[in-house]
């Protein structure tokens, strides 16, 4: 079972993209050669090379020192510093409830001892590998402090790495050989790339006023118990250096507007909805009118959900909207082709032996492509130029015409896949594993939305069902990262409608959970729409939260199974809302 989900994060944690202003120079390969004179790009007059230069110097000094004095010696060393500048502002019912800026730099250190065939990163069933700590390092470009941190972390990580290698080797002798005989570390070309640090423009006044004003619209929905409109902006700059000669400085910006609301139905079931808008450049965020429409939609949806019928157990045909389908593919397909899972005995390994086999209908292909910035007019969250191992992100044709071709690869090889395809990712402070980027589902059997709906109705009749289902939004959850540090995870119910064959209007229901074997559902995909939709989110797994996208047309599935959600036991609030008095009076609401 995978514990990961696409999650939406209200607080900015790890973000995205500006256009690369500087193209990378051809790789230069000599191991350990400092890149100071061979970087491409324009350093102008700023001091922005200081971090990367300091890293490169300390990398070499520590590597040389450890190689000559340490036993066992390391064969590889890398540093990644992630610089994150964030701005966020949030409001509820017309008043601000949060406003803050942050700037942090985190150091991740990798030391490999042994050799690429067997090193301290060998996956041992059920064991969590964790060496790096994401230590905070100076945000000033001040070499002394950064150098001291690099030195202390290298020493600490080296000791932990050496200790684990010795344990693994001892363990190795008493255990039968692993089924997957692949090595622990792939050889890759090195990259040199430099671009100025990312700096997102945050118009504090504009967004403070906007979230205040827009959140005030939620006062029109008296049944809501909580609601929020927030704007989060973040710039990420990543500095990477390894002993193979890679020197990479790259970054991206991210701007995001989130609209959320929640309430409880009469029986105590929690209901909620949200909408979000993402852009790499704040200029591309929607106008307030567009956001206002989202507030209206969310408010109406949640109010409608509080009085909606609860789902009944059901097996039958359904349409998943493009966004819902994207998440569906991300969860039940994407995670299963992450490379490292193929050699972890504790994993389900659904597809490990399926390369070259048909796993989806012929008309479907799935690509993971971190190089694409924008689809269907929407900036993609899963865009990046280099992954967290300093390897350039590459498109991966995972499924071609229904046939499995490849896995998502970090520098941890698996049988038949010796190289990374630039999908080694992490949140600062955690070890890299292979993760998704931009998941893109494409189809050669596509029809218009209207035709797809007609096909659903035909299917309902054919199967002699009272109704079919339309999943407008599937989102596994919302993670709220509050300033106080308390992280709450909240399951967001699916926005689901019953679609009747007899021409009755669609009917919103609540509490529908999809069950069954999701893989069997793939075989039952009948057709798709001809319009791609984008879902931007954050995916949480072993290596933390990383920005991802899922792009898909709507899909028609001939058979899907849902069950009733457990009955909630919460009572509604005992006293009426203090807002109800205000809402009943004719005078206008006091929001400016």
């Amino acid at each position: 079972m995978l514990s990961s989900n696409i999650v939406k994060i209200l607080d900015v944690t790890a973000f995205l993209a500006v256009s690369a202003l500087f193209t990378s120079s051809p790789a230069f390969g000599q191991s350990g050669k400092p890149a100071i004179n061979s970087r491409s790009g324009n350093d102008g007059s700023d001091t922005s090379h200081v971090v990367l230069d300091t890293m490169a110097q300390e990398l070499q000094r520590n590597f040389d020192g450890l190689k000559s004095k340490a036993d066992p010696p390391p064969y590889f060393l890398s540093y990644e510093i992630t610089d994150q500048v964030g701005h966020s502002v949030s409001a509820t019912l017309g008043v601000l409830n949060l406003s803050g800026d942050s700037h942090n730099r985190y150091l991740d250190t990798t030391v490999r001892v042994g050799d690429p065939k067997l090193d301290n990163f060998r996956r041992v069933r059920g064991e969590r590998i964790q060496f790096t700590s994401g230590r905070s390092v100076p945000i000033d470009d001040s070499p002394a402090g950064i150098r001291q941190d690099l030195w202390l972390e290298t020493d600490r990580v080296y000791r932990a790495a050496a200790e684990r290698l010795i344990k693994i080797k001892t363990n190795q002798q008493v255990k039968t050989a692993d089924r997957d005989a692949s090595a622990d570390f792939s050889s890759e070309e090195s990259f040199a790339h430099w671009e100025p640090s990312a700096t997102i423009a945050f118009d504090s006044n504009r967004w403070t006023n906007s979230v205040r004003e827009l959140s005030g619209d939620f006062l029109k929905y008296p049944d809501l118990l909580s609601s929020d409109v927030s704007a989060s902006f973040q710039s990420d700059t990543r500095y990477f250096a390894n002993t193979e000669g890679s020197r990479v400085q790259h970054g991206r910006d991210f701007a995001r507007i989130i609209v959320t609301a929640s309430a409880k139905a009469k029986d105590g079931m929690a209901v909620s909805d949200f909408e979000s808008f993402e852009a790499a450049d704040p200029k591309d965020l929607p106008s307030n009118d567009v956001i206002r429409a989202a507030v209206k939609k969310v408010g109406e949806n949640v109010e409608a959900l509080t009085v909606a019928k609860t789902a009944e157990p059901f097996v039958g045909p359904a349409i998943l909207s493009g966004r819902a389908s994207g998440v569906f593919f991300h969860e039940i397909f994407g995670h299963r082709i992450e490379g490292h899972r193929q050699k972890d005995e504790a994993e389900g390994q659904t597809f490990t032996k399926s390369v070259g086999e048909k796993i989806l209908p012929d008309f479907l292909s799935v690509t993971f492509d971190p190089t694409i910035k924008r689809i269907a007019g929407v900036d993609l969250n899963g865009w990046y130029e280099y992954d967290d191992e300093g390897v350039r992100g590459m498109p991966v044709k995972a499924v071609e015409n229904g046939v499995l071709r490849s896995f998502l690869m970090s520098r941890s090889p698996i049988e038949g896949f010796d190289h990374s395809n630039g999908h080694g990712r992490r949140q600062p402070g955690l070890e890299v594993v292979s993760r998704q980027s931009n998941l893109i589902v494409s189809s050669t059997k596509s029809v218009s939305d209207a035709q797809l709906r007609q096909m659903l109705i035909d299917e309902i009749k054919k199967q002699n069902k009272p109704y079919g289902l339309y999943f407008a939004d599937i989102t596994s959850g919302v993670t709220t990262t509050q300033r106080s540090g308390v992280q709450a995870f909240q399951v967001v119910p699916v926005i689901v409608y019953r679609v009747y064959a007899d021409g009755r209007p669609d009917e919103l229901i609540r509490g529908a959970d999809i069950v069954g074997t999701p893989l069997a559902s793939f075989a039952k995909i009948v057709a798709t729409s001809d319009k791609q939709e984008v879902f931007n989110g954050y995916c949480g797994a072993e290596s933390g939260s990383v920005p991802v996208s899922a792009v898909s047309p709507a899909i028609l599935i001939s058979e899907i199974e849902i069950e009733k959600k457990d009955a909630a036991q919460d009572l509604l609030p005992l006293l009426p809302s203090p807002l109800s008095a205000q809402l009943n009076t004719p005078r206008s609401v006091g929001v400016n």
Partner: protein
Amino acid sequence: MGCEGMLSRGIALAGLSLCLAGVIPAAQPDAVFDAMQAELQRSMTLTLNQLDKPYYLSYSVDDEHSWSATATLGGLISSNTNDYRIPRLRIRVGDYKFDNTNWTGANAAGPRYNLQSFPIEDSNPLVLRQYLWLATDSAFKGSLQSIARKRAALRNVTVSEELPDFAPAPPYVAIRDYQPVKIDENLWNDRTRRVSAVFESFPGIRSSAVQFSAIDALHRFISNEGTKIRKQESMATVEIEASAQSADGMIVRDMGLFYTRDMTRLFSEDELLKSARAVGEQVLKIAAAPLGDNYTGPVLFEGVAGPQLMAEVLGRNLHISRKPVGAPGATTQAAATELEGRRGVRIMPEIFDVKDDPTQPLFGEEEFDDEGIPDKPVSLVEKGVLKDFLRTRQPVRGYDNSNGRARLAGSYGADTPAPTNLLISAHETTSIADLKKKLIDLIQQRGLPYGMIVRKMDFPSSAGIDEARKILAAGSAGGSGRAVSMPLYVYRLYPDGREELVRGERFKGINARSLKDILAAGDDKVTFNYLDNGAPFALLGYGSGAAEVTVVGQSLLIDDLEMSKIDDEMPKLPIVPAPSLLSQTASVK
């Protein structure tokens, strides 16, 4: 109540500034207060199926503005400015005699309403009330569960002594002016950088950091009993820390701590630079000092070490902890304090009197506590005899009223008492020179090669959590209750008067009983300020909340103390030598 009232009852030092321009007077309407009041009144009518009703409800909403900057070796690690509001509520159902608290399942969770941050603007008071409405509804339902489970548990266990659950208290009203504080963020970022850069000239230092933080809070509190309080609470701190590694691998630390509640006169750069240099020099001296040895005999706590020891050994034992009702077999964290049951008993030599006086204009000054109870001076020890305890509204054996010392968060629905200004006076005193003579006399009588002088304790401690665990484990291994902090500056005093710095000593078995072994008190008067957070050794960055405490005391000569040398495994020295700290490629901006 204008400035006069503030000066007489509030923070006197900060009070001086409150008469300047920009004061928000007490008389000015306060939308937050009104919202709290309205929702409190309404919430007292909460009722569900003839179950217990609320008999006590309090709200507090604190407006907080915080600034912080941390730097190492001239480079800023972080700099943050935050404005937020912290709402808290206390609800009790049942009655004073029996309610939902004082049992291990107190604070059962009610329904979740996705409450985000409390609004920081007041343009629509109903939105503030909306938050309080939902928070109260959830807490009320949770407290009904708590009291029901408590009743169920009591069918299976008998309690040794039946005490009421909450002490009634008269209402207290105090609305004070508010003078918003302004902190020059850039100045403090730069100053923190510059102070941290001092350690660049100490190449033997392994790691170092300087942290500035300031907070300006407007505290509001109301309860259904009629208590209504609004008061400014501001504070700033600087922590200067450094560590070094001895040749045998031992990591030694030192730090300089600065506290103030006078926001008009923060720390001068000179005093901070001076402290950083002193920390740098001292930590290198300690790292180079020989390892200490096991020692049993008299120890002189000179200067600040005296009040530091008293803060830990006396200050933290001046209350009675109450064992909560527990489900059968459940374990609780409530450990008995060392002075429990010793009222009327001599706990120190007759020369000592101890008072806790919140009215003195010192760092620990306080008008009222977290439960809205006015702090009164309390005479704790008279001629060495224990007379009283620090108390909250939680009834404990022998007491059913508060004296206003609810200053730290506690467990099971109660607060933990902490001192304010702990004043330790001695009627007979000895000069420091004579204390040393006395120490030499004693060791000569007993044939000891040297005596021990401690000049600074690691309290509050900058130890990491792993190190703290080791000290706790080593301390309790002696079977003498809780461990005390490590001594930071330890000197051997030889009969010829020569002193020798040593490192790696820990106390074994110091506890409240050791107070009886005080042989003499110095004629010095030392003021020691710290923030108590309830954590062992007041470990920086841990614990629950923070109470400003001042201990005024003196040097102390104590007999029969046991020190043992650390026999932990030492980390190895780094394989690669430290980088040269002077920058090679660029200079700091």
